[in-house]
């Protein structure tokens, strides 16, 4: 096979599995993030600050293990851009091999109305001030902002370069086709604007202010993306594994009523448009999504590929026979089990969930820390999956 043929073959494995067509073999995706830096023998701070090193890390990851697609190619921790303004929400501990994110809100509860009145002004004046001390004390200069802008350009150049390399030299299809992307306001609130604690308070106190802010943030960050998606041509992009990505975190703190009110309308609109377009979405809901499975039962096969973090994949197949599954390999097993146990798990998953399509293997969590996986276990699973 030429590289082009191999890339198309791999993309088809994912497309067939997503559509419950028996694929030639069950495809295997890498969900390894910072682990691959440590596995390549680099410090986190070295690779995250040097795109040439990050390129070596990603190349080695594929050369060593041989996946059918790599979901993360060094884009997750773009620390050089914020560091141009002297601050970053990530804490890197090279000794421990960890990266942690500080849950810091940029908006207080009593500022929600101000946020609702003018999102751009709020982000510019208060959001930036709370993230960057030099913005807060007014010492930021044109040169500082130019540096941040230049860093963004370097980052985009890296992403273009590594995508091309992995596509052309390693025959890996892109994980998702570039499409309009709607960022649901509640998740934005949870991740960045109010934080976990703040949003929990907002949903119990003066919900009118929260709703006004959500409307304003959705108007700016959800609506344009969904409108762009509506204008996309019908049909999947068969060069990519999936058409769209919907990653959600905020559902973990929602009760049913809050889910119905704040999150589901936007999820539903997105899923409905994707169904109309005959596209496929990878739905990654962190933690457990089991409480909300009923909402997904009526969608057609081929639309949703669920990537569960904590939920049992066999239970998902039983409860949601219309939903394809991406996942099944516990990081806990890769980190503490034996090669034989890991291969047995992969074998059981492929035989029980993948025999008629509808299943793709990947890790249940972003593989981040050194002890999340033993390299020999990863290699054994990859060899087994390629042998199918």
């Amino acid at each position: 096979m030429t590289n082009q043929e191999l890339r198309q073959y791999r993309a088809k494995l994912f497309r067939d599995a997503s559509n419950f067509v028996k694929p030639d073999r069950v495809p295997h995706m890498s969900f390894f993030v910072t682990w691959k830096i440590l596995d390549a023998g680099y410090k986190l701070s070295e690779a995250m600050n040097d795109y040439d090193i990050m390129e070596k890390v990603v190349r080695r990851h594929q050369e060593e293990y041989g996946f059918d697609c790599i979901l993360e190619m060094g884009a997750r921790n773009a620390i050089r851009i914020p560091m141009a303004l002297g601050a970053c929400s990530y804490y890197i501990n090279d000794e421990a091999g960890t990266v942690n994110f500080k849950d810091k809100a940029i908006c207080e509860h009593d500022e929600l109305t101000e946020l609702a009145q003018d999102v751009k002004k709020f982000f510019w004046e208060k959001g930036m001030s709370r993230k960057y001390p030099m913005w807060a004390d007014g010492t930021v200069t044109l040169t500082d902002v130019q540096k941040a802008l230049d860093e963004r350009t370097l980052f985009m150049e890296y992403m273009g370069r590594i995508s091309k390399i992995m596509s052309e030299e390693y025959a890996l299809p892109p994980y998702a086709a570039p499409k309009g992307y709607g960022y649901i306001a509640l998740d934005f609130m949870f991740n960045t604007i109010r934080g976990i604690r703040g949003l929990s308070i907002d949903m119990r106190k003066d919900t009118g202010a929260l709703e006004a802010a959500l409307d304003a943030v959705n108007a700016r960050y959800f609506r344009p993306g969904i409108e762009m998606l509506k204008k996309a041509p019908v049909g999947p992009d068969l060069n990519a594994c999936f058409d769209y990505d919907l990653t959600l975190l905020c559902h973990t703190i929602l009760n049913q009523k809050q889910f119905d009110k704040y999150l589901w309308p936007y999820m539903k609109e997105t899923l409905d448009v994707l169904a109309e377009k005959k596209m496929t979405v990878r739905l990654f809901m962190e933690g457990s999504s089991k409480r909300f499975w009923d909402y997904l039962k009526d969608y057609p096969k081929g639309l949703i590929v669920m990537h569960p973090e904590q939920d049992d994949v066999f239970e998902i197949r039983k409860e949601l026979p219309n939903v394809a599954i991406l996942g099944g390999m516990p990081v806990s097993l890769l980190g503490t089990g034996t090669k034989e146990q890991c291969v047995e798990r992969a074998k059981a998953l492929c035989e029980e969930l993948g025999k008629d399509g509808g299943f793709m293997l990947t890790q249940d969590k972003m593989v981040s820390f050194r002890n999340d996986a033993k390299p020999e276990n990863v290699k054994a699973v990859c060899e087994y999956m390629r042998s199918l």
Partner: protein
Amino acid sequence: MDNEKKVDITKYPEGLEYLAEHLQLPVPIEDPEARKAYVFGLIDLLVRQ
């Protein structure tokens, strides 16, 4: 570059207008709205990081 500073760039919208006019951007100077959108794209990213 900083000698040209005339406004407080941390204020909106004057900071945005100033940066859109003075930063070196891959957007033609004849298209101020596109330049502002480009600069705000950076702010969006910085706020999330």
